[in-house]
């Protein structure tokens, strides 16, 4: 009959788990060769020693083996009663889980530190199942630990095509290179879409197998707002002077290299001081905001509209000659002149146009946007 007794013996002897047989007094009656390693002593010194009875929760539990060199080795213990010649022996199966326990402890210790930081933390298995998050994760994403654990980062997908593509690309690079850093658009629990700066690194077992991915991320909303503040006019939301100057420099370089042409329109509001004096600065501010909105409504997506200062506005029109700029300038002038501003009534603007480079300057207009608009205050001329 197969397996015969010798086969059973070799099954037990070659097991990588330790197998002990305890007599009713808890003394070791048999130990397989794996026990030598676990207990750190020869089998002869183990057999006849008193292990004790065993009582563990449910079927299995952790017990610790004091090893002369390795300290206390964590094992997972299972036991069962075996009757031999009608004497109840206890078979004990011990599996060395020290590596797992140490890894979890390291993870736990690092999460204690990471609980305190304001960057979001997410730890996933290689299949991207989330196994740990920190409080900042909840602050940023709106998902609690219970809501996140067991799910995958799919939880936060925005559903937008371009974000899906970025996500797929990120996964591809992560699999190929092992780590990834960059910005991604994600969705909070409340539905809000936000950008996060994300860094993903792998954690490997001693044998090199991938064990976890650790993702650290921060919410870019605040920094995006700062960037917005740095480049935009706080009142109108248009680009500010510094941002326009930057675009202007770029456009000059581009024009010089490719022999292209671009144009500038500058305008200011006539008698704006009187609007402020008569209706107050709040009304003046609202007029500036409404002028900005009307202007944005007329320009093309590629045009750069800026508040140059006070009541002065400047529009950079890439790949546009002076004639085309003149058409747009006229549209803006008419649009504003025909608008009844809720508090200030009718307002006119004066404009100047420049084509760059300047050898094709349109008749009747300055070739640079100069210190001020061409038409004098209160005398808007038909362009």
């Amino acid at each position, binding site marked *: 009959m197969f397996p015969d007794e010798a086969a059973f013996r070799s099954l037990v002897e070659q097991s990588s788990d330790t197998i002990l047989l305890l007599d009713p007094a*808890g003394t*070791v009656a048999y130990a397989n060769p794996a026990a030598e390693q676990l*207990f750190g002593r020869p089998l002869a010194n*183990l057999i006849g*020693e*008193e*292990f*004790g*009875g*065993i*009582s*563990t*929760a*449910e079927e299995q*539990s*952790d*017990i*610790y*083996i*004091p090893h002369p060199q390795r*300290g*206390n080795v*964590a*094992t997972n*213990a299972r036991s069962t009663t075996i009757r031999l010649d009608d004497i109840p022996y206890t078979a004990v199966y011990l599996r060395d889980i020290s590596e797992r*326990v*140490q890894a*979890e*402890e390291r993870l736990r210790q690092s999460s204690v530190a990471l609980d305190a930081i304001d960057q979001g933390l997410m730890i996933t298995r290689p299949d991207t199942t989330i196994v740990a998050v920190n409080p900042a994760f909840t602050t940023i994403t709106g998902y609690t630990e219970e809501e996140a654990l067991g799910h995958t980062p799919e939880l936060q997908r925005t559903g937008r095509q371009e974000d899906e593509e970025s996500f797929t690309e990120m996964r591809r690079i992560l699999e190929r290179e092992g780590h990834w850093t960059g910005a991604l658009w994600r969705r909070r629990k409340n539905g809000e879409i936000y950008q996060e700066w994300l860094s993903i690194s792998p954690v490997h077992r001693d044998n090199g197998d991938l064990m976890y991915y650790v993702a650290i991320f921060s919410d870019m909303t605040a920094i995006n707002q700062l960037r917005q503040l740095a480049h935009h006019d706080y009142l109108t939301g248009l680009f500010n002077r510094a941002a326009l100057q930057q675009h202007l420099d770029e456009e000059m370089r581009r024009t010089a290299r490719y022999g292209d042409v671009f144009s500038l329109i500058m305008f200011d509001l006539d008698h704006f001081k009187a609007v402020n004096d008569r209706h107050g600065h709040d009304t003046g501010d609202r007029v500036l905001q409404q002028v900005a909105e009307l202007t944005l409504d007329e320009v093309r997506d590629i045009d750069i509209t800026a508040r140059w200062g006070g009541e002065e506005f400047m529009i950079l029109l890439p790949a546009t000659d002076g004639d085309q700029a003149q058409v747009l300038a006229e549209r803006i002038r008419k649009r504003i002149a025909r608008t009844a501003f809720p508090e200030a009534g009718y307002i006119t603007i004066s404009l100047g146009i420049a084509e760059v480079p300047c050898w094709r300057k349109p008749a009747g207009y300055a070739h640079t946007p100069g210190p001020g608009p061409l038409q004098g205050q209160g005398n808007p001329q038909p362009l």
Partner: protein
Amino acid sequence: MFCVSTSPGSTATAERAIDNLRRLVAELEEDGRRVDVEVIDILERPQLAEDERILATPVVIKKLPEPLRRIVGDLSELDKVLIGLDLKEH
């Protein structure tokens, strides 16, 4: 009782074993028995653990009344522990 309460991962098991030991003591005292218990961390007193020839922790050793008995594990099966320690009839 011998346990390891300060080594990575072992704290939870040691705490569970100590809790169960408390329940066990309470049960014995209800029966009017006097119980003296000593909890020893083998990392703090390794020589004592060696003298007692401890093979695994947590372990509770009953010294008196004789016979000497020891039970390994978190002691969660109270009845089985009492029987194993020879403090209750089978």
